[in-house]
Each structure stands twice: as structure tokens, then as C-alpha cells.
């Protein structure tokens, strides 16, 4: 049958225009917070790069859940680490966000603001007491009421150092720096003795470093950033001294956590933050380093180390709210967090779990020593990264810090500019 040119043109225009009319989703409807009803139906659960190593664990958890709640079916999808925020944003914009999503606090904030995250203070308040208070609060957003994800596993890590590099510089390898002042003194000494060939640190200070140094990161209302105070300037000035003396690696301005980890492995850098997981890597990839590895606590001026929090967010638009909430709680309850912690070096966010002998009893191995020290520090740890601190803000801070280190701007001007840029981005977030 002949097709007229008009019909074809109309089809082409429709093909172009229809998708346009569908674009720009996002929803004003935050979804009902009513979670009453029978736990049943099909839900989708999305994790963040966990399938490769924990396939059987999650399949077991899902099977147990489906057995406990007949009539439920959980479809598990796992996304690679790279581009995870982009995947979530594409799903949210396309209306295909899974029912239960693995998130970190900085991912929850924009999702909650756009109405995609369920307020658990309304829908699942009865579970609140099961979790550490700090962990529950980590998914609360300044300027909004409510909590937008179940706290899942926590992580923190010690500071690793290369004992042989300390020894070569005439420093006592058994007495690593414990305070920022000691760190700066030792770093300058190490650079001097190695003629600038060995740096102590490989990364420029991030917002977490400012937090650990005791800098006030945001104002009390959470409406603006405040890390350009005297303490912030003091920290950046100290880092500038390190950079000039090559005690901070010259490539720190463009470093990533991966690249600084490699520098530590090759002995180009004397100290590097890490986790209990790294010990295995050292043993395998750098046996000489492993023989000389020193482990010390994160350096902090506040008495609180930094922790990373993972959470499970329930999609506010889910049609199976009772099942989604029940599953998110099931995965994050004390029993399952504990069993997960025994498979990998993470820590439960449930109240009382960190007092389990697994986190308190020494067995003489380095792994256990690191685990016990981390569990102890986690009880008072703080997630220093503000939940509203987006990737764009991280880049703005990093660029201004780099300008200060290069001497293109004074530390005060650099931090003033960083705060101004971050405040502008914060306002644009709405």
C-alpha cells in the first residue's frame, strides 16, 4: 500500500516530538507514605557493584526473604561502580527507578528533594531504634524533615604507613604521627631527608579533611558553607608548606584515590588512608611493602574519625511499598548486617552489633587488629561529608585548593572562592 509523503512526514515529526513531550520527568508527587498492607508482590532491588563478590550472599538473603514472605518476589540488579549516580538519575528521570536502591547520603539528597525517596520517619519509624542514632541521622537532609534511607553498612579505615621510608628518614617507625602537627613535622622531615623524592601524602585536602581538622563545614541552618574560617585557612596553609617542600606529592593536584594507592604501593608515598581490605592487596601486590606496613589511626583533631555510610532507599513511587520497606529493613537488620560483615570488611550500623566479640576480641592477626580498632572508632565516628555536598562542589573545592597550593591564590582567597562557588551550587540545587 502506498504511503503518502505527508503521512511519512507526520510520522517522523511525531517520532521526534513525542519523546520531547515525555522528557523532563521528575515528580512533584512524593508518593504516599502509607506503608500499611500485606507484604507481597514483585519488587526490584539494586545494589552498587556487589554482585561480583557477594552473589551467593545476596541470593541467599533474597531466598530467605521470599520464604518468610510468601507471595513476594525480589528481582536483584547490580550496577557497576563507575557511573552509578548517572544510572540512578537516568532511572529516576525515566520512571524506572528500582523499588529498593543502594545509596550513599550524597545520592539520597537530590533524590529526596525530587520526591523519589520515601520518608522513613513516616513510613518505617518503628525500626528507627534498631540502628545507631548517628547512622539513622546520616540520611537526613538539611532543610527537609524526615529520614530517607535505611542505614546499611559503615566503613572507616586506618592510616597505613611505610615503616622503611620512616626509618630511612631517621623517624621512629614505631611512633607514627598521631596529630596534625606531628604529621606536618614528620612529612617535612621525610621530604627533606629524601631530597624531595618521597612524599608523605598523595592527596590534596578534601572536605572530610577539613572536617577532621575541626573546621565548621556548614552554618548551623545548613543553608551555606563555612569552611573558609580561620581554621580552614590554617589547614590549607599547612598543606601549602607541604606542597612547596614536596612533602605532598607534586601530582596530588590531579590524583585520584586509585592513583595515590598505586603510589603508596610503589613506595613513592609514605602514608595513605585505607581499609582492612587493603591488607590483602598489599600482601598480594607488594609483599615487600606488606613486610614493612605500619597501621595507625586516622588523624583527627575532633576526636571523631570519618566514616562512610551506605544506605537502602525505598522508592517513594513504588507500587509495592509494604514489600519494599520490609525488604530494605530485612537486608539492613542486625542479623543480616552481621552476617554480611563476616564476609567482608564492613561494619554494621545496627545498635549493639559493634559490641559483638567479632569486633572486640583480638586473635593476633593484623586483619583483626584493624577491624577491632575500626569498630571502636566507629562508635563515635562522623560522616564529615555534608549530604548536600555534590560532585560539582567537590570539584569547585578541589580546584580552589589547587590554586592555593600552586600559589596562584592565598589560602584565604581560595577558600572564600570555594565557599562562594559551593553556595551558588547549593542555591541552584533548590
Amino acid at each position: 500500500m502506498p504511503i503518502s509523503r505527508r503521512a511519512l512526514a507526520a510520522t517522523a515529526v511525531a517520532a521526534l516530538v513525542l519523546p520531547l513531550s515525555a522528557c523532563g520527568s521528575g515528580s512533584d508527587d512524593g508518593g504516599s507514605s502509607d506503608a500499611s498492607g500485606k507484604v507481597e508482590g514483585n519488587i526490584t532491588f539494586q545494589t552498587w557493584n556487589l554482585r561480583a563478590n557477594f552473589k551467593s550472599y545476596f541470593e541467599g538473603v533474597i531466598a530467605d526473604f521470599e520464604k518468610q514472605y510468601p507471595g513476594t518476589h525480589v528481582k536483584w540488579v547490580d550496577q557497576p561502580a563507575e557511573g552509578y549516580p548517572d544510572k540512578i538519575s537516568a532511572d529516576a528521570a525515566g520512571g524506572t527507578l528500582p523499588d529498593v536502591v543502594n545509596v550513599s547520603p550524597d545520592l539520597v539528597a537530590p533524590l529526596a528533594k525530587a520526591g523519589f525517596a520515601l520518608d522513613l520517619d513516616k513510613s518505617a519509624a518503628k525500626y528507627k531504634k534498631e540502628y545507631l542514632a548517628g547512622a539513622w541521622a546520616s540520611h537526613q537532609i538539611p532543610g527537609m524533615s524526615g529520614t530517607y534511607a535505611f542505614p546499611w553498612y559503615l566503613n572507616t579505615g586506618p592510616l597505613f604507613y611505610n615503616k622503611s621510608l620512616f626509618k630511612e628518614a631517621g623517624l621512629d617507625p614505631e611512633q607514627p604521627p598521631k596529630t596534625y602537627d606531628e604529621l606536618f613535622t614528620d612529612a617535612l622531615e621525610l621530604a627533606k631527608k629524601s631530597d624531595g623524592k618521597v612524599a608523605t601524602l598523595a592527596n590534596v585536602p578534601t572536605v572530610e579533611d577539613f572536617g577532621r581538622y575541626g573546621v565548621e563545614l556548614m552554618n548551623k541552618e545548613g543553608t551555606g558553607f563555612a569552611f573558609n574560617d580561620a581554621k580552614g585557612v590554617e589547614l590549607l596553609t599547612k598543606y601549602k608548606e607541604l606542597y612547596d617542600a614536596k612533602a605532598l606529592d607534586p601530582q596530588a593536584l590531579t590524583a585520584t584515590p586509585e592513583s595515590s594507592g598505586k603510589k603508596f604501593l610503589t613506595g613513592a608515598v609514605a602514608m595513605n588512608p585505607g581499609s582492612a581490605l587493603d591488607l590483602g592487596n598489599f600482601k598480594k601486590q607488594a609483599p615487600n611493602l606488606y613486610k614493612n606496613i605500619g597501621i595507625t589511626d586516622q588523624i583527627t583533631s575532633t576526636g571523631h574519625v570519618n566514616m562512610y555510610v551506605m544506605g537502602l532507599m525505598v522508592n517513594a513511587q513504588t507500587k509495592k511499598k509494604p514489600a519494599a520497606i520490609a525488604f530494605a529493613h530485612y537486608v539492613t537488620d542486625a542479623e543480616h548486617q552481621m552476617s554480611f560483615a563476616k564476609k567482608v570488611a564492613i561494619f554494621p550500623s545496627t545498635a549493639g552489633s559493634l559490641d559483638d566479640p567479632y569486633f572486640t576480641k583480638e586473635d593476633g592477626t593484623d586483619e583483626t587488629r584493624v577491624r577491632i580498632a575500626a569498630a571502636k572508632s566507629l562508635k563515635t565516628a562522623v560522616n564529615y561529608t555534608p549530604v548536600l555536598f555534590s560532585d560539582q562542589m567537590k570539584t569547585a573545592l578541589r580546584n580552589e585548593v589547587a590554586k592555593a597550593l600552586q600559589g596562584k591564590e592565598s589560602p584565604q582567597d581560595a577558600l572564600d572562592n570555594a565557599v562562594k562557588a559551593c553556595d551558588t551550587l547549593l542555591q541552584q540545587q533548590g
Partner: protein
Amino acid sequence: MASSTVPTGSRARRGSRAPEDRPVRRVRRQLPSSPWLFAAPGLLITGVFVLYPFVSTVINSFTDRRTLIPGKFVGLANFRELLDDDMFWIGLRNSTLYVLGVVPALVILPLLLALLVQKNIPGITFFRSAFYTPVVASIVVVGLIWVWLLDERGLINSLLEIIGVGRVGFLSDQWLLLVSAMAVTVWKGLGYYMIIYLAALANVPRELHEAAAVDGAGAIRRFVTVTVPAVRSTMVLVGALSSVAAFKVFSEVYLMAGPSGGPAGEDTTLVMLVQRTGTGLTGRVGYASAISVVVFVVTVVLMLLVLRADRKDES
């Protein structure tokens, strides 16, 4: 094919009374739609993956749309903001420098390389393949290899130290970083453009070279007066292709300078800025679209300039 036998022109449109023309008339009735049907898959793909994103980007550039929040019309606000955005000017500067640094090298060096491997001598296939290998290698792999080579403790710096030059901050100095990224782009692109030149050189009549040689022209003279004019249109093509690719550079600089775009973001290119601004859950899609529109306009202008220069030369 039946349609290829169909007569065209006024006679065909009027129809013919000749009995032998009847089957032809039946085929002709299907003609108007048939080409469209054949073109439909291509048109659909172009519409969905080229036209729609393009139109969508242009529309978004006039809105304050964010990743999760539908925007409202803001007129030229995004473009006005660009004028005051230091990072935009840094991106424009770096992308322009990239074109200026990379395009001359990619127009000339592959031609010289093509001349070297053009001759059929034993073992030349190995060299042709070797020069082409970087083209098929993954840019991520290539980028990482070069990062290792240029690292403060990498092979190149170790050699420089041995010969007494001392270590050079290829990956920590903003200008050296940009030059290093350009070197990788040129190195990776040489083989591709070499193949294009080889095809062009195969069409240069040997008699012209012989005549020039008889007239006493040396190798350089023959290159300038015979080879270059003969492959001039290919040089224009290579210039156009490489300038567009260079202005839109992303991978090389991203891999070598890191996601932040080098020290203090000073090596950021425009496409990196689009990626950094417009992606993630808090991405400013409207603003990133405005930058993309600028990239598009500059790219079109670049193409027009190259083509215009070509026409001028021809006239």
C-alpha cells in the same frame, strides 16, 4: 531491480499508451513510498539518536533544567552565565589550543608516514600494521599506558634523569599536561590518517614525479610541487576531520589530567565541562546544554572555515 528500469521524466509521468508499458505503470504507482520505506530504518535511527538529542539539547539550553527537576524557560540566561564563567573560558581556550596544536601535526605527519610506508619493499606490511595499531587500541588503555610512561617515576622521567635532564612534571604542570594529551592524540591518530593518505597517494600519477625528476627536481621539491598539490583535497579532509575531533576532545585529557581537569581544572576542555556540569544527580542539564550548543556552533564554524579555505585555494 524493477524500479531501476522505470523511465523518468515527463513522458513517464504522463503515462504511456504502449501496451508494453503497462507493467511499468503498476510499479510506478508504488514509487513515491518505496524510497521512504527503504530509508525508514536509517531515518528512524537518525531521528532518535541524532535529531532528537540535538533538538532536545537546544531546547534544554534555554531552560534551567536539572537532572531530576524539569526546568522552566529562562531565555538566554545560561548563555549570559557562560560569559561570566571562568571555567567556560578555560575550556574554550584549551579546546582551541588543542585544535591549533593537534591539527597541523595530524595533517602533515601522517602524510610523511604514508610516503615512508608507500613503497612496496619487503617487510613494509609490518610497519604499516605497527603504525595502525594505536588506532585500534582502546583509548582508555592507551591513556593509562601514557600516564604510566609520563609519571614522575615513570619510564620517560627515569630516562630523563639518567641523561641528566632531571624529572619533568608532565602530569603535574598544566601546560605540559595539555601538550602530553595532544601528543597522545597525535600518536593515536597517525595511523588512521596515514591510511587515508595512502589511498590518496595511490592516485597520484607516477608520470608527474618522473617528469619532475627529469626536470631536475629533488625529493623535497617533488614533495612540495607534486605530492602536496595532488593530495591537497585529502589534506583538507584530514584537516576538517581532525579539527572537529580535536575541538571535541575528552578522553585523552580526562584520562591524563583526571576528572577535575588537571591542576585547578586548568586543563578542562569544553566537552569535559559539559560532562562535569551536566551529569550526576545534581547535574545542571540546561547549563551543560548551553555549553554543548556553543561547541556545536564552533564546530560548524571550523568546518566552514576549512571548506572556505579550500575553495579559495581552488579558485
